[in-house]
């Protein structure tokens, strides 16, 4: 019996050693949950594959978790069940929630701990600044970023005798008013302009470009006790102007998101269409019967040096609660994503910005923007000036609800229920209530 027992012990020990050896040799799996489907999902997969092929210590597994809302909810549920992935892609409006969650490992810390000394100055600053804390430390890694631009129907412009627009120097809103008036009056098109994501393009970006504070405390970067300021005369004036345009058909309201407005532009019901730069790929695919071009967002005539526009999109957050070894791999993967060749590939395939200056310079050198002049309009608009405390981004709790409130109140202006001033006053009042609720959570 004793011999048998001894043999057993030896066998077990041997198998344990063997197993341990195997574990050591096995690469560490790093999970990345994202919201990129279809063509974008494939591009992301290829970037993962390039990383997995380049080394043998880590294997990154990318999983599509649905749209932005679904992905962030998947992350929340997983974290509560202590089954969180290493990396979660979260959209820009969720930045404050993620940042304060206490569930994340800031990217600047992650990189430092992994021994990477990254020159953050080599990144597109307006992209980084959206995801930095008040001290200028990067909390999450920007992944897909875009900014609004203005598309216009070249054929309709020609028919109405309107000269083409410059790709660098923005037109003024007054000038756009004349253009849309000409479009409508000449009868070539029933409506002048249409805009997607109205809160993002007409309030958030309008404020950033004109360096108008969207909220107090540096747009919320410097404190949870911030309040919305969008009932200022300039923003209200802009909405009042759009309402005038709405009344004489220079502006057509096509819905809160992009589907309706895009359909109006494609159906040539409107000659001008303001939306994200990432719409280029969609328009290339969908528009068959007319030529179109891209110009920067219009600017008020009193704004001599317009600021940068702000971004939309998503960034990559790293969750707490994993092994140190895992984080080395996460850092290596994030570094891999920021490599010029990866960024160039991503930009060319999806239209989202390359996030490093090195990638941008190389694209310029390659002559890519001579071939694809559309693509550069957004980058130039985004990088034309160093971001100020006001134009670097927005950092609001319950931002999703606030956007929703702004959208609702704007709709009430368009359908004549409220004056622009009353609507914006109410939007501020309602949003501040949300901000106070949010503030209480983290007290």
């Amino acid at each position: 019996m004793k011999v048998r027992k001894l043999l057993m012990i030896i066998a077990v020990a041997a198998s344990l050693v063997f197993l341990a050896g195997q574990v050591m040799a096995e690469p560490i799996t790093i999970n990345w949950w994202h919201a990129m489907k279809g063509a974008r999902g494939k591009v992301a997969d290829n970037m993962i594959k390039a990383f997995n092929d380049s080394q043998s210590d880590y294997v990154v597994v990318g999983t599509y978790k649905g749209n932005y809302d679904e992905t962030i909810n998947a992350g929340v549920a997983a974290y509560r069940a202590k089954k969180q992935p290493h990396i979660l892609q979260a959209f820009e409006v969720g930045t404050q929630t993620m940042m304060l969650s206490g569930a994340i490992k800031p990217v600047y810390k992650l990189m430092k701990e992994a021994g990477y000394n990254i020159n953050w100055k080599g990144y597109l600053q307006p992209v980084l600044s959206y995801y930095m804390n008040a001290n200028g430390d990067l909390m999450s890694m920007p992944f897909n970023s875009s900014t609004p631009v203005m598309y216009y129907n070249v054929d309709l412009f020609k028919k109405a005798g309107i000269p083409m627009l410059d790709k660098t120097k923005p037109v003024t809103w007054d000038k756009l008013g004349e253009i849309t008036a000409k479009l409508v009056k000449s009868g070539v098109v029933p409506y002048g302009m249409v805009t997607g994501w109205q809160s993002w393009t007409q309030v958030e970006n309008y404020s950033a470009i004109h360096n108008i504070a969207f909220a107090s405390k540096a747009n919320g970067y410097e404190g949870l006790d911030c309040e919305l300021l969008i009932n200022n005369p300039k923003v209200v004036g802009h909405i009042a102007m759009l309402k005038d345009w709405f009344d004489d058909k220079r502006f057509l309201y096509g819905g809160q998101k992009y589907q309706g407005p895009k359909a109006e532009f494609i159906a040539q019901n409107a000659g001008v269409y303001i939306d994200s730069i990432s719409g280029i790929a969609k328009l290339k695919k969908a528009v068959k019967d007319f030529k179109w071009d891209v110009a920067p967002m219009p600017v008020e005539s009193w704004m001599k040096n317009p600021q940068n526009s702000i971004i939309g999109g998503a960034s990559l957050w790293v969750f707490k609660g994993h092994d140190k070894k895992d984080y080395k791999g996460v850092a290596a993967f994030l570094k891999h994503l920021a490599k010029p060749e990866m960024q160039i590939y991503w930009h060319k395939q999806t239209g989202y910005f390359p996030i490093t200056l090195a990638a941008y310079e190389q694209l310029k050198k390659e002559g890519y923007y001579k071939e694809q002049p559309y693509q550069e309009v957004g980058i130039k608009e985004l990088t034309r000036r160093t971001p100020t405390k006001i134009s670097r981004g927005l950092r609001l709790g319950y931002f999703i609800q606030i956007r929703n409130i702004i959208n609702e109140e704007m709709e009430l202006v368009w359908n004549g229920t409220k004056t622009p001033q009353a609507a914006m006053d109410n939007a501020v009042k309602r949003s501040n209530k949300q901000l106070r609720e949010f503030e209480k959570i983290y007290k």
Partner: protein
Amino acid sequence: MGNAFPVYGGKRCFVNSETMIKRSVFSSRTLPYLLILPQIVVTLTFFYWPAVQGLIQSVMRSDPFGQHSTFIWFSNFVTLFTDPLYLKSIGITLFFSMSVATVSISTGLFIATMANRALKAKAVVRTLLIWPYAVAPAISGILWLFLLHPSYGVVALAIKRWFGVDWNPVLRGSDAMFMIIMASAWKQISYNFVFFIAGLQAIPKSLIEAAAIDGASPFRRFWTITVPLLSPTLFFVTVMNIIYSFFETFGVVHMMTQGGPGGATNILVYKVYQDGFIGLNMGGSAAQSIVLMTLIIGVTLFQFKYVEKKVQYAG
């Protein structure tokens, strides 16, 4: 008579020799509990546990990741009921569900009456009419959007061009409300139809014929004979329709209006989703779910207590 009760696998059979009725009595005390255990486990885990979680969540203020939670009594409810928009949403929901129930029940009943009288191809007509019920609410929303969206809806473009109707559900609340009522009711018509046709067929023809011989008009026959005899079905269908319009219409609203324009179609169940799932406000949306739950329990109890008294079950 060694053994008065023949035992078959633990089951004793009492055989009453006079009436020859077999009665089974299970002697085991634990067996019945074991048998209902799966049902209890399923009910507890999938219904009661989440409901209790919701109840707890509704008296907490917490961040989505559950790192900062404070017990705040009924503060979430106070916030809700002092919010004029929430009260407005209750009003919208009541109007919406009444409209959906009215449209789908009356149309369903009308079609069922017609189909019941159809002589030729009765079976085919009925089968075709049942089909829309198989369509999920979200799909129904998309289908109706393809018809009624002001930018790309076929019907919308037609009525705008040929009849000059100023149709714009993207901007006008009443148009949007009309649109979601149509899409929600359309799907439910088939459901009501199935029950009504079954109910109609259970009504003895002789009664209606007798009334006809006595000279009652078709409308009077319908009103004084068919409707009272159909009342159990009508009652059941009303309860089901109200519950449907409170909860399942989520897909329709999500696809068609997302609660807009200006919150005009923001029904309660959609608001829960918007605040909880999209907005990540856990306490507030949990409180809303509790209100919604209470409301639907209230409506159903009211229906059973007051409406059911008028229902005639006996044929």
